[in-house]
């Protein structure tokens, strides 16, 4: 089938849904394609909250929020974007309330707010209550609310249509081509369809599945990011991957920072609140990269629980009321997945791969840019975790991802509507599905003698976790690069156990494996090149931040022999880089 | 596949009736709780089938306007309650033609039982020589 539309949104997480909603409100003929049912998107798992300087409980200003974002990101943040983020956070949160989002309330009926890591008053003085929340289900409520509004506005959804290729008109983007649509694989019957469109938004989320211990969904395989990369668009700052301090041991399911925001503490084997040695002011509410590193150091010093590789998160002193009313879900998780009762026992935790700061480079209108000069790819947009605006720099602050979805999802929708009004719809493209068809058939037709995808996936997850995790060094990264390349080689010959057309997840997983490998390679290459420590990227062989050489964004282009790196400057408007202490 | 999609259906069809039926099941349920247990206790605990006979019924039980009305009310409630209940059961397990047939049969039987019961209650003369 060939479907003509004026706008296409790939991905129905928070970013995609808000963009779709804006487009629907503007009357643009829009389709949302998603490989999952919209309500299954990963945005639904976000627990803690969404920050906006509403000042409902204490004095707060968007400038403070902007400062925290910049400092939290270790000054690699583009400050023009951070300003947009902090300012528009306020109106988007209010708009969400108007759409019906059931925020928790203060006694006088306003949106309730709580503390969150790295969010401070008066430029770093003390923790501030900025995170707006709905129990520990904020992401769930955002996803539901936006989906509800999309239904109300009659947005057209193509559920379980997996986008497998991007279409361009007038050549590849590097040659000045414009976005012309996508090719999608219908999971239910294996048919390929082309969707032609003036504007295409990628909102496909993150790719934490390249790590062994991750809070990310099985479906987060970086599809949109990898497809851009394969079409010659560079990827920005991919070496920055956030590890969240409190994942469930072994499987990585997240216990939200909200637990610490409400007053939960981290303890080592001796029962010490070790964070007082690493961040005396903010303690457990220091930014995530710092807390994760502190945890690793404790573990290395043999102060992990029982000498093992995990520590304790303790919420017992918060009392039953706070735990059950404000942290119900994470209490459940501890019970189900660890068999631990948080009311009476401390919960074992360990850092878990959580969030990709890097991704598809965009400007503040969510338009994808393709080089150091920020040249726009006409008609191609990106928003959400897959994009890199960059508001998170080297390390994202808690809650800022949801803000990012709202602010830039909305901006993407508005900009797409404007753009769609100015251009003609691309014509049908001859053999649009041929390249992916060949690619998928190649996997499908391979005899079942080769290795399984699962094997490659496990090996990749192991090497990324062990060598490209919280702490890195040149030796580990070099070894990782060799391993990733070996896996890419082997992945070219994997075989699958399902040759059918109906709901063939084996085929799709094999295809997704290719995306993860591409992105892993870019991550390792970027990390190897960046000989400094900044935010989430911590090189033991280069422990200091080096602004003179490295205050710049990495851009990784796909080349015949792997990624080639270029760099672009960071936009600095208000806050000059300073050492980062909390 | 949109086998049972209700989306886009503008107006519900028989809301009023379903609500009334639901309500009536509850009202008649309360009534039956008293009526049926009173009836059952009367026949089995106050008296016993071995002491009862047709003449006993005509001379004792039904020789009072109260007991006649009582039994008739019980009958009315049972018939309506049970037939609404059986309607639900039928609609749950039968489809298409079978459902129509069963429902029609059910209503017919209901009407017949109602009439038969009423006839008995009314046709027996009130005062018979003892």
């Amino acid at each position: 089938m060939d479907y003509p539309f004026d706008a296409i949104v790939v991905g129905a997480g928070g970013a995609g849904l808000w963009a779709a909603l804006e487009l629907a409100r503007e009357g643009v003929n829009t389709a949302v394609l998603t490989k999952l049912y919209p309500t299954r998107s990963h945005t639904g798992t976000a627990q803690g909250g969404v920050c906006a300087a509403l000042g409902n409980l204490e004095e707060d200003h968007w400038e403070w929020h902007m400062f925290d974002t910049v400092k939290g990101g270790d000054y690699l943040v583009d400050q023009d974007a951070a300003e947009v983020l902090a300012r528009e956070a306020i109106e988007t949160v209010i708009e969400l309330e108007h759409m019906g989002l059931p925020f928790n309330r203060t006694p006088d009926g306003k949106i309730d707010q709580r503390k969150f890591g790295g969010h401070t008053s008066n430029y770093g003085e003390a923790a501030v209550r900025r995170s707006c929340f709905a129990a520990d289900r904020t992401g769930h409520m955002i996803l539901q609310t936006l989906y509800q509004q999309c239904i109300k506005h009659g947005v057209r959804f193509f559920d379980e249509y997996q986008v497998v290729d991007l279409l361009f008109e007038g050549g590849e983007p590097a040659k000045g081509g414009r976005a012309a649509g996508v090719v999608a694989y219908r999971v239910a019957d294996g048919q390929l369809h082309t969707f032609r469109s003036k504007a295409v938004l990628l909102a496909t989320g993150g790719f934490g599945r390249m790590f062994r211990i991750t809070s990310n969904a099985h479906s987060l395989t970086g599809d949109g990011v990898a497809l851009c990369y394969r079409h010659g668009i560079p990827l920005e700052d991919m070496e920055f991957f956030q590890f969240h301090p409190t994942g469930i041991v072994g499987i990585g399911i997240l216990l939200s920072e909200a637990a610490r925001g409400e007053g939960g503490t981290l303890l080592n084997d001796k029962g010490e609140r070790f964070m007082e040695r690493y961040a005396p002011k903010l303690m457990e509410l220091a930014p995530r990269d710092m807390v994760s590193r502190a945890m690793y150091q404790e573990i290395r010093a043999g102060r992990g629980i029982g000498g093992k590789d995990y520590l304790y998160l303790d919420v017992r002193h918060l009392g039953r009321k706070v735990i059950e009313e404000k942290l119900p879900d994470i209490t459940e998780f501890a019970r189900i997945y660890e068999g631990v009762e948080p009311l009476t026992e401390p919960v074992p935790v360990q850092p878990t791969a959580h969030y990709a700061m890097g991704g598809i480079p965009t400007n503040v209108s969510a338009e994808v840019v393709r080089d150091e000069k920020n040249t726009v790819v006409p008609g191609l947009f990106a928003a959400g975790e897959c994009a890199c605006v960059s508001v998170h720099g080297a390390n994202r602050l808690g809650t800022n991802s949801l803000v990012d979805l709202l602010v830039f999802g909305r901006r993407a929708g508005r900009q797409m509507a404007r753009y769609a009004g100015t251009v003609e719809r691309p014509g049908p493209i001859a053999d649009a599905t041929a390249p992916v068809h060949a690619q998928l058939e190649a996997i499908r037709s391979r005899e079942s003698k080769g290795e399984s995808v699962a094997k490659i996936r496990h090996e990749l997850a192991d090497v990324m976790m062990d060598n490209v995790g919280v702490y890195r060094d040149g030796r580990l990264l070099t070894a990782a690069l060799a391993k990733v390349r070996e896996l890419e080689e082997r992945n070219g010959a994997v075989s699958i156990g399902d040759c059918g057309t109906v709901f063939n997840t084996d085929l799709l997983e094999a295809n997704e494996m290719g995306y993860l490998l591409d992105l892993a390679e870019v991550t390792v290459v970027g990390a190897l090149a960046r000989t400094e420590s900044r935010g989430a990227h911590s090189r033991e062989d280069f422990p200091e931040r080096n602004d003179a050489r490295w205050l710049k964004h990495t851009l990784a282009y796909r080349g015949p022999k792997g990624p080639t790196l270029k760099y672009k400057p960071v936009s600095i408007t208000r806050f000059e880089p300073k050492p980062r202490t909390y | 596949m949109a086998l049972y999609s209700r989306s886009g259906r503008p107006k519900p069809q028989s809301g009023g009736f379903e609500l009334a039926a639901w309500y009536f099941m509850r009202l008649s349920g309360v009534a039956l709780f008293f009526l049926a247990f009173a009836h059952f206790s009367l026949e089995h605990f106050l008296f016993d089938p071995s002491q009862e006979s047709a003449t006993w019924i005509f001379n004792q039980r039904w020789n009072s306007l109260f007991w006649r009305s009582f039994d008739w009310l019980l009958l009315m409630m049972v018939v309506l309650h049970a037939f609404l209940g059986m309607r639900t059961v039928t609609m749950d397990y039968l489809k298409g033609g079978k459902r129509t047939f069963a429902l029609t049969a059910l209503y017919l039987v209901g009407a017949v039982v109602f009439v038969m019961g009423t006839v008995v209650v009314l046709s027996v003369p009130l005062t018979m020589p003892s």
Partner: protein
Amino acid sequence: MNVDLRILRYDPERDQAPHWENYQLTVDPMDRVLDLLIKVKAEQDGSLSFRRSCGHGICGSDAMLINNRNRLACRIRVDQLGRKISVAPLPGLPVVKDVVVEMSGFFGKYRSVKPYLINEQPEPERERRQSPEDRARFDDTTKCILCAACTTSCPSFWARPEYVGPAAIVQAHRFIFDSRDEGAAERLEILSDEDGVWRCRTIFNCVEACPRGINITRAILEVSSAIVGRRG
């Protein structure tokens, strides 16, 4: 520990009818059924299809019939089930393949109850005010993840697939009892239809199945009470 896993397999391209397949696995008692399915797919039969995403009970992808009860595969551990585990698709929905079922009917019903805030008043500058008590009124039903475990566990739904089902009523409840919403009358009208709330026979399978611990039956009865109160 060793477990016997039985899966009701069906591939419309190969099989006439669904059939059981047995798999022997060595697993950790803390593993979840989803881990078992992933293991079978990785090690024994790649053609096994199932939906999954978040892996921790939030996205609602992997509701299925496990040991004859609807649950999320990622939320139920082996040690809660024992050595014999059976897995089948959700009852009452058309099967696409293996444990994957056709969900469009389910979502169609969801859409039919107008699951969105209806309030045509001009929007205030700041947030609308809502007291914590008013907010608490509908908290339970905001938790729904649309996994369909409830609707497909309901004998009333099996008997009459037209029944709008507990999940859709839960979604309607979330708005009917939201003090900011003005669409209650429309929704009650829709739900007082013959396939609406009256089909609920207070069987409680839905409550038992709900992975979010929602007291669904209470929500349904609150909705029917609201209908009765409005008309009666």
